[in-house]
Structures are given as structure tokens and as C-alpha cells.
């Protein structure tokens, strides 16, 4: 007999359900089967009404973030084999986001936060393209390289207790994106970004739990980015204070 695995999937259909509930499906076990493959099999063969987001199935598009046994994970990079022999395998929509339907979360607030942090290269002297590339050594690139690997999957927001308490908190990915540009040797926008980095929803809201970095599927380490942002914000505060004391109030 074929070995099967029971997958409990969260369902929520706003037109008929008062609140989310769980539905169990039996999925044939195979070594290669990802949770995403399992969800697609369920949709194809058992219940076409199941809704979930996915596309690349290779952990680069960031669509398929869900809670798997309570942990934020990419469904395409998590496998049935990792849960073999465990009592349960439960898939839910990402924590800390409103649920649109089934496993589909409303991530629009997170996207707004990404847009807030001016995530583009800011220069005081924009060079024409005909002048060629800005020079940047591999060592200079290394300073921000990890922070540029974020796929915007939102797992770190599902992991962040502060974002759970206060959706206005800019959160791990957005603060990391700001730091990615602040650390880029070609960028001169750090002082502009300092305004909201210092603000109430910025780096100081982070209580440094560090769970965001643990769940990141791309080793971006947002906790480190936020901590660096705090140091930068501290220095900015100290410089401003120093200038104010010297009567140069340009803060």
C-alpha cells in the first residue's frame, strides 16, 4: 500500500466562514515532494477550491510563504520528508497578516512598508550613463550583499512579535532594504532615510528577538541589518546632539 501523509490545511472562505478552520487531506508520500507540491496535488485531485499563492517553485519569487507546524516557511523549500514520523503536518496562512482566503494572506501592508524606505539609489551628483559604471570593489559590495538577497516573502514579518503587535512597525525586510542602500558605496541617501529609521516605526521599535533571521530562507539576517541601523541611528543622534550643543542646529 502506498504510504500517505495527512496534511491539515487551514481553510477560510470569507463569503461563508466566520473564522478559519482546518481540513485534512491524505497525500501520497514521496521523497521529493515539497509542501507546495502537496498543496498543488490537493488542489488538482481532491479539492479545487483550495487557494494558495505560488509560482517559481525554486525559492526565488517569494510567493509561497506559509506557516508549517507553526513555523514561517516557503512551501516550495520544505519537504514532506522533513515531517515523516511526526504526529501532524499543519499548514496555515502566515501569522501577523490578515487572511484573504485559505492560505492567501493580505500582504499589502508589508509591501507599503517596503515602498516607504526609499529603496532606490540616491545620489547628489547623478552621473550620466555615458560616464560608465560607478566603481565598486568586491569588498565594498560585500558590505551590503547579504541584505540585497531578500525575496520579499514576508516570513520575517510572520516571525516578528513587534509587527504582530503593531502593524505600523516597518519591520525586518523593509529596514533591511533601507540598510542595503545605506551600505552601498554608490548611495548617498542615508541621511534622508534616517528620518523614518529614527522614527517611532523604525529601528527602535525592534525588541531584538532575532527570530526574523532564523526563519529567513535566503540568509539575509535582518536582525543584523536592524542592529546596524540602530548603531547608525545612534551615531546620527550623537552627531545631531553635538551640533545642537555647538549651536549648529541643522538636525
Amino acid at each position: 500500500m502506498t504510504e500517505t501523509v495527512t496534511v491539515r490545511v487551514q481553510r477560510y472562505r470569507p463569503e461563508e466562514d466566520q473564522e478559519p478552520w482546518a481540513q485534512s487531506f491524505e497525500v501520497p508520500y514521496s521523497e521529493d515532494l515539497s509542501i507546495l507540491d502537496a498543496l498543488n496535488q490537493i488542489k488538482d485531485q481532491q479539492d479545487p477550491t483550495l487557494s494558495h499563492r505560488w509560482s517559481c517553485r525554486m525559492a526565488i519569487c517569494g510567493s509561497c510563504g506559509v506557516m508549517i507546524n507553526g513555523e514561517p516557511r516557503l512551501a516550495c523549500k520544505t519537504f514532506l520528508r522533513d515531517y515523516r514520523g511526526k504526529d501532524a503536518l499543519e499548514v496555515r496562512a502566515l501569522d501577523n497578516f490578515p487572511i484573504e482566503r485559505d492560505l492567501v494572506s493580505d500582504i499589502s501592508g508589508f509591501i507599503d512598508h517596503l515602498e516607504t524606505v526609499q529603496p532606490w539609489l540616491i545620489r547628489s551628483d547623478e552621473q550620466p550613463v555615458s560616464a560608465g559604471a560607478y566603481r565598486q570593489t568586491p569588498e565594498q559590495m560585500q558590505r551590503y550583499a547579504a541584505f540585497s538577497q531578500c525575496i520579499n516573502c514576508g516570513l520575517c514579518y510572520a516571525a516578528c512579535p513587534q509587527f504582530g503587535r503593531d502593524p505600523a512597525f516597518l519591520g525586518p525586510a523593509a529596514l533591511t532594504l533601507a540598510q542595503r542602500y545605506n551600505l552601498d558605496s554608490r548611495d548617498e541617501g542615508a541621511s534622508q532615510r534616517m528620518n523614518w529609521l529614527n522614527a517611532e516605526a523604525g529601528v527602535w521599535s525592534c525588541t531584538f528577538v532575532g527570530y526574523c533571521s532564523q526563519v529567513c530562507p535566503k540568509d539575509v539576517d535582518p536582525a543584523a541589518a536592524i542592529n546596524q541601523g540602530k548603531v547608525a541611528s545612534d551615531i546620527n543622534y550623537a552627531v545631531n546632539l553635538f551640533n545642537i550643543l555647538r549651536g549648529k542646529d541643522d538636525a
Partner: protein
Amino acid sequence: MNAGDAPDIRALQADIVIVGGGGAGLRAAIAAAEANPQLDILLLSKVYPMRSHTVAAEGGCAGVIQLHDSLDAHFDDTVSGGDWLCDQDVVDYFVHHATEENLRLEHWGCPWSRKADGSINVRAFGGMKIERTWFAADKTGFHILHTLFQTSLKYPSIRRCDEYFCTDLLLEDGACAGVQAIDMRNGTHTLIAASAVILATGGAARVYRYNTNGGIVTGDGMALAYRQGVALRDMEFVQYHPTGLPGSGILITEAARGEGGVLTNSDGYRYLQDYGLGPETPLGEACNKYMELGPRDRLSQAFWHEAKAGRALATSRGEAVNLDLRHLGEARINERLPFIRDLARTYVNVDAVHEPIPVRPTAHYTMGGIQTDRHTATALPGLFAVGECASVGLHGANRLGSNSLAELSVFGRVAGEQAAARASQGPAVDPRRLLARAQDNAAGWESLREARGGEHLATIRDEMARAMEDGAGIFRLPGQMQQTCAKIAELKGRYRELGLVDRSRVFNTEWLNAIELGNLLDVAEAMAHAALARKESRGSHQRIEDFPERDDAQFLRHSLVYRAADTPRLDWQDVVITRSQPAERHYGAAGQQESKP
């Protein structure tokens, strides 16, 4: 709405609507915003832009930058790589602007990999005589897409409709006057009147069973244009990438070979030397246009012969050959190919530092698409198309790796500027004039949502994907091609008897998948009929049994497929030849001799 009422329509207006938020769509949006900041630009996509499939491109993006390289050399490689089916005026424009666009991406923050002195680094790629492929490790498409998305946020005139599914083009007085889309959050049918519409919806390799593409790559824009009488051009040319993971089809970049990786069969033999690509190059010394750096069509065809001769490896995930990177060493693999190492570990449980990666050809890229002129304009006034969904005439019968990422920027910019010029001449039509048609369309989509026939969505999709692989794959055999055409016709009939279960309006992916399947079937039909009509072998279109040779006398022409009631109508268009007369394609030692003065 109550049953029997006309569906509710939300009406919006913009100067330019761009459908698709990948590299081409975003580049077009930025170009339009820069060309005329007064224009209201609406970027509409069925996914958040950074989910678009540009994100999965790995290896790199072409542009001449080395002193010993030349635009002529890039032109020659592209035209011969495309087996002379490229429009040469388009190729000229492309090679002249690719580097400029790569530099612009650099100025916008794209983290191109660098040399020790901080200047841009380039790597070798298949079919390219000199290294001219810019790269950002092995996540080039990811970095380009995120750079473009983030840069687009600078422009207040670019609005977005994220997670809107475009269902129809709306015409008025013989011109494209807007689009219609479903707001996926609540199912609302939304019409957007616009002076110019740009389709940038990507490819269609999801018509095949094994493919490198994301689930969203369903030929939507191609089908939208096709249904309005616009020709799909060169649809028979579908690229099989020689190195996908067996089972899933996940892409293992050509850069793995550009960096020195080699392909071996079940005897451990570098079989490419038997297919006109040799002599064998020393291990770790990749040689441009030799062996593993031959073009993709030739490499995929070589696999087919090896498998037929019983020299493929039998793996639990199907037949494969070995892609061996071990001699590169851990440090280089980590620096240049970190994503490949991660993918192989995750999806086939192989550490490329210690073991070869099993690979096989998988459907990857549609060379053809919506017919446009070199300014990205379609035959329908007001409608532009760019990127993989379009056929601007760049890739001919076989695309060279790293030309398509460059295409997104070069022609994305053209599309944005052309659309801006049109939109600057006058406002969009009053949306009320489009309302009646939009209501008719919406009624059709609503009846699909309510469909109660006996046919099953996933079954039709899987039968289509298998039929395309059988009759429109790496080699096209006469009987199978006919069967595939018949099968697609049968499936289109059965599609009309579809039964759906999900009646919801909220993020109803069964409904959206059904619309996508309709798109895929239209595209599959165009591909299969174009393949049948092209009675020769050229580039990725190989008919080894009935027409094994290239036939320039009859087929140095683009195919055009027009939609018709029963079977599609075929027509032909001359190729633009400016300065490179068709010749034999040679790689390996034969190519070397040819290029000597």
C-alpha cells in the same frame, strides 16, 4: 449582482496601461514616466511585480564591454545563433543599446559582479565568441527585477494594480483603447481606458510538461493579442534549455558551463564532441563556442540522441546526463554559483562541490510571440508588446543565453517611450464607451466561474502538456505533430465543457487557472500549427525525419499565425537581412576555421 443582471464593472482611466510587472513591464513604466512625467501610468499584474518570472533568470545579461569585443561580433553571434531568422536591423539596434541599458541598471543600484578593481566583470556564455555576459552571481534576473521594481517606486506617476488578472483587450474605432481585468481580491471586473497599452506578460513554456518556468508563465498576453486578430510570429521556435533538473525541470544556469562545468553521459564521456562541437576542451578551460559553450538548441538535441542511444543515466527522476562542476572547487562555486549549489542540494540532494548534478533539457523560452515592428508596435494601433511575450525579431530560430535579459531593458525602454509618445497626443477614450463590451466580456467570465460541465481542469492541462512534449518538443516527427494538432483541437472542444467547483469571487484560483488554461490552449494551437507548416529544420525547430535540412529558398521567412474559427490561418513575412547573408552554422573547430580570415 443578481442572476441575469449585467455584471458590475468598475471603470478606471489612465494614459498608459502596462500589463505585466516583470523586467520589460517595469522598464517600460520607468521609460514612459521619464519621457513625460505628466502621464498617468498604470502597471497591472496578476502577481506583485517581484514575483514575475524575470526573477528566476540566473546566468546573465549580454552587452559588449571588453576592448577586444565589438558590436559586430555580438551581432554575428546573435544572427548565426538564431540560424539567420533574426531581423538584422533589430539585432543592430539591440547590440548598440544593450551595454547602455546594463550601465543604467548599474546606476540604479543593480549589484553586478565586479573584478577586483571594482570594474564590471563578464562571463562566458553559450554561442558567444567573446565574454560579454554581465552577471550578478547566479541570480541576475532576481537582482535586475528587484532593482527595477525598487527604482520604479521613485516615480509618483507610476500607479500599480497588483494582483489584477487581465482578461481582455478593449478596442474602439479599430484601436486598442484599454484593458479589462479581474481584481483578484474580490472578483470585481475592472475596465481601464487608456491611450496606449503595453503587453509585457512573459512567455508560455507552461504549455509543456517539463519546463523551467514558474506557474504564472501561461502565455496570457499572447492569447489576448491573438484573440484580437494580431498575429503570433515564429511560435514554432521553443527553446529547450539543456540543463534543467530531472523531475521538476528547475533551471540550472548556463553559467555553470560558462564557468567551466562539463556534461558527461553514462559512460563518463563528454559526448558533445560527437555532435560537431569538439574537439574536447581541457577540463576547467572553457572555450567560447566549443563543447559545453555551444548554443542551446544543439546541446538539447545532442541529449536527445544520447538518450536514444541508451547513454543517458537512469535516475529515480528520469533520464539525465551529468553536469560536473567538481573541478571548479568549493570557493569558485560559492562565489559564482551559490544559488545552483543551493538548488541542487534542495531539489535533487546533490552537493555540486562533491558530486555531478543530474540534468536534462526542459522547455524554457518562447522565441516567438506577438508580432511587433522594431519599435515594439503591433499591427493594432495603440497596442505594444515587449519581452518574451513579443516577437520583435531579435532571437530568430534560437535565442542565445543572456540576450533575453538585455532585451527586457533595451526594448522595454523603447515600448515605454513609444507608448508615451502616443499617449501624449491625446487622452484615453471615455470609459463609458467601453462599458457595454466590458459587460459582455464579464458575463462570459462569470459563466466560466459558474461552469458545470463534466471536464476536469487539471486533466485537460496535463493532456495538453504531454501532447506538446510529444509533438512539438526537441525533435518534431511527422505523425506526432499531426496528432498534437488534433489533440489540441480536441482539448479546446473539451475546454468548453469544463466544470468548476469554486464559486467564490475572493482569490478564486480555480477560476483564474481556468482562464490561464484557455490562454495556454490558444498558444499551444499556434505553436503546433506553425511547427507543422514550417517544412524544414532550423534552430530549435528540427524535423529530422521528413525535412532534416534548412530550406532558405522557402522558409527564410517568419511564420505568422492568425486565429480563425476552426484551424488557425498561416502566413509568412520576410526576414530583414541587412549585412549577414545566411550561411552554415558552425561551432567548435569548424566554426574556428570559418572565422579565420
